[in-house]
């Protein structure tokens, strides 16, 4: 192939990955515009220019801590408090990183961006989505992350610009995020052989929510989940399979001649839904 042909082929590959990634991010568009607008409006009515939500949505790109940062900016100057607050609220990212050690590696500068933009939603989609065999994984995950980033940035900025001018009845729209995580949980449930970890995640978090309350339950939940998973490691590890295969659905790692056949299969499972 000549250089020109390679270039065209590369562009086609990138476009193809974009088309595959976009549908996965549509629910995030709804959720992030709603939350982003709310966040921008909140900053606007707190007396900040739209520059603030604009720059903070790009640099921080983590929903809940950005709302908290508004209060930090309104209070007395305390950088240590800002640092520890952000560390505690975002500690769950540590779990995402541990889960993505293999998946996010080997894509050069895109790996850096994938880790930089690893919010709840990008992690969840990139971890569970069954990427068709003919789509480049690195570009797929890159576009999922980038689109989410753009949705959050544009929503926050628009909210900051138009602020209190916006009046429309969107009560309940924030449920789109809950619905998405329920679907992601279900997708994981339908592909895993053993449901122990899923069930533990739900039950232990619920117990911690009851014990510690809505504002302080994330860190205890993480610690308890970590402790229990460590205690039950020998039996659970056996059931999860060999270290190399990962928790991905069967067939995902296959390569070579069967590739096209597998991507067909993936499409069919996504569309059909005739689950045995």
């Amino acid at each position: 192939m000549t250089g020109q042909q390679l270039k065209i082929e590369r562009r086609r590959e990138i476009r193809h990955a974009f088309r595959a990634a976009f549908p996965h991010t549509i629910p995030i568009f709804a959720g992030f515009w709603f939350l982003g607008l709310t966040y921008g409006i909140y900053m606007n009515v707190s007396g900040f220019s739209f520059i603030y939500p604009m720059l903070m949505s790009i640099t921080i790109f983590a929903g809940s801590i950005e709302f908290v940062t508004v209060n930090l900016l309104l209070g007395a100057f305390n950088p240590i408090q800002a640092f520890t607050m952000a560390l505690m609220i975002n500690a769950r990212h540590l779990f995402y990183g541990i889960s993505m050690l293999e998946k996010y590696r080997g894509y050069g500068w895109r790996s850096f961006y994938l880790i930089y933009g690893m919010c709840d939603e990008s992690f969840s989609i990139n971890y569970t989505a069954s990427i068709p065999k003919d789509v480049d994984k690195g570009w797929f995950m890159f576009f999922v992350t980038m689109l989410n980033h753009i949705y959050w940035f544009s929503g926050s900025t628009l909210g900051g610009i138009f602020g209190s001018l916006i009046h429309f009845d969107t009560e309940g729209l924030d449920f789109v995020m809950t619905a998405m995580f329920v679907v992601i949980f279900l997708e994981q449930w339908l592909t895993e052989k053993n449901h122990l970890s899923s069930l533990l995640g739900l039950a232990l978090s619920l117990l911690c929510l009851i014990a510690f309350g809505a504002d302080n339950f994330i860190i205890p939940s993480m610690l308890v989940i970590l402790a229990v998973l460590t205690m039950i490691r020998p039996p659970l590890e056996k059931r999860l399979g060999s270290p190399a295969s990962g928790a991905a659905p069967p067939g995902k790692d296959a390569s070579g001649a069967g590739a096209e056949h597998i991507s067909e299969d993936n499409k069919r499972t996504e569309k059909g839904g005739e689950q045995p």
Partner: protein
Amino acid sequence: MMLTQQIITVAMVVLATMLTRFLPFLIFPAGRPTPKYIQYLGKALPPAVFGLLIIYCLKNVSLFTGSRGIPELIAIVLVVVLHLWKRQMLLSIAGGTICYMLLVQFVF
């Protein structure tokens, strides 16, 4: 707060957030084999984390005041049923969200 103080505050938040995202990749670099225990956690954690995220979304639901979590329950059941039936992500999410919006705006 002065502008420089604001910039420092936001920078601290960015720094801490990025630390939580990059730390695992820095501790377990690509060249060296990742410890077996961490590999195990990499597989065992995600399902539990998805459970945690659902509870996180529902953390402000009160079972004893207001609508008592009934709209949330109905909408989640609908999401699950739709998804098991058609297994189309967008349909399940849109169906559940519209149902929830109708419930909180007109019923409860």
